[in-house]
Each structure stands twice: as C-alpha cells, then as structure tokens.
C-alpha cells in the first residue's frame, strides 16, 4: 500500500504506557506491507526508547503528556514523539553514546534510536519540551528475497 495515512496518540507520561505506545505504532506501521518482522521490532524499540525518555526525563512533576504522531507517506514511516516538559539544554551532548543525567541509566536511548532509524532529528528548547522525529522505510521494499511477514 502506498497511500497516505496518519495517527495521533496522546497519553500521560507514565511507565505502563510505554508498551501501549510501541504496540500501537507497530500495528500502524504494519500497514506498510514490505516491513519485515525484524523492522517492525526495530520500530517497537525506537518508540519504546523515545517514549521512555519522556516518562523518565520529560517532566518535573506528574501529569505531563506524551504526544506521538505517526505518518505513512508512500513507503516511509515518520514517527514524532513530543513532550512539553523541561527540555534538553545540550542536544548534541545528550545524543552521545553512554551520556545520561540519571546515574542508574545506560545513556543508550538516542544511540539505539539513531542506529535503528533511517533518520533521527532531536530538537528542544529548554522549558518548552523535546521533539524527536524518526524516519523508517523498508530496507528491501519490493524485493522477493526479504523475510516476509504472513
């Protein structure tokens, strides 16, 4: 299918909604027939990382929201994960492997998002929140050889 389609999700930034977000986006993404199972798993993972970041780092006080927007244009999936929380002062530093502001975290969230998306854009204004935009298209669109989903 190469039509255009889009969905918006909005929900509180709490830990149990991370699964909801990745399952919902993965289901939407599977409208692109040529994504393999492995690519759908990659999409689950990058959504999980982006939404977990909002839950962990986004807001100083409870009640903040996460907004996820997913768009299909042709064969390209674009996922936007946004919050209106404290933001990131130095985005370049935050994107470094192993950089974290939480001592018990690994600091690998952005590294994973970067590795598994075709394009990662992170923008923020401190105090106004963070916007993460990730793009993903099937590697072997149209090929007969790639592992097909039933």
């Amino acid at each position, binding site marked *: 299918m190469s039509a255009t389609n889009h969905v918006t999700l909005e929900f509180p930034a709490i*830990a149990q909604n991370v699964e909801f977000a*990745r399952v919902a986006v993965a289901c939407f993404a599977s409208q692109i027939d040529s994504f393999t199972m492995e690519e759908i798993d990659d999409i689950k993972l990058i959504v999980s990382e982006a939404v977990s970041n909002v839950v962990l780092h986004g807001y100083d006080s409870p009640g903040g929201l996460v907004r996820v927007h997913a768009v299909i244009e042709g064969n390209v999936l674009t996922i936007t994960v946004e919050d209106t929380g404290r933001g990131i002062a130095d985005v370049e530093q935050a994107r470094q492997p192993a950089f974290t502001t939480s001592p018990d975290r690994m600091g690998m969230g952005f590294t994973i998002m970067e590795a598994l998306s075709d394009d990662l854009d992170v923008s923020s204004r401190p105090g106004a929140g963070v916007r993460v935009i990730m793009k993903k298209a099937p590697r072997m669109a149209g090929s007969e050889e790639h592992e097909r989903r039933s």
Partner: protein
Amino acid sequence: MRTETRAIGNVLVVRLSGELDLGTAPEFRAKLEEELDAKPDITRIFLVLRDVTFIDSSGLGAILGRYRRLRAHGGGLFAIAPSPQVRKVFDLSGLTSIIPVYETEDEAWARASGV
C-alpha cells in the same frame, strides 16, 4: 512479564518471559533483589531469556543493575538464549562486551564449572 527463579547450589536460574521495559523492570528488579537478599549464598545468576519477546534499554538497565550487585562480591551474571531482538539490543548497547552470553543453559553450566 513473568520471572521464575530456582536456586541450584550457588546459582540462581532465572527464567524471564514477556516484555522487559520501563513498565515491567521494577517488578523484575524487586523479585531478584528479594531472592538475592533471602539467599546470601547465591553468587551467580543464569538469566534465561528464551521467552523474552521484547527488551529495550530500560530492560537492559535492570539486568545490568543485578550484574553489578553480584560482580561487587566477585560473582557474575550470564545471559542465556537471547532471541534475535534481545541479542540486537545487547549488541547495540554494548552490553555484550560486559555480560557473557550463551546459546544454551548447558554452555553456561559448562563454563561455570570450568569444563
């Protein structure tokens, strides 16, 4: 997410199933901390990941935390039978170079017993 544990000598065999993420990591962490507190003889965890259908960096963090606790007392944690999804996250995050990964329980036992 489900965590089944069984102590065999000084090894705690932990079988995880389901999804390990920010939502389920606290339960996993609490369960293992409780076991380790109750059984001070345990020096190693064999973490069987065969039925883990999804993991992310929050899940890895929970595993790494248990590894560090055991390591601090000279013990260790082995990851066993990761699915391709789990393996990929281990590799991407660099955990493969910290935590030993084995394909089967047998290999972990062989290694642990110095065979």
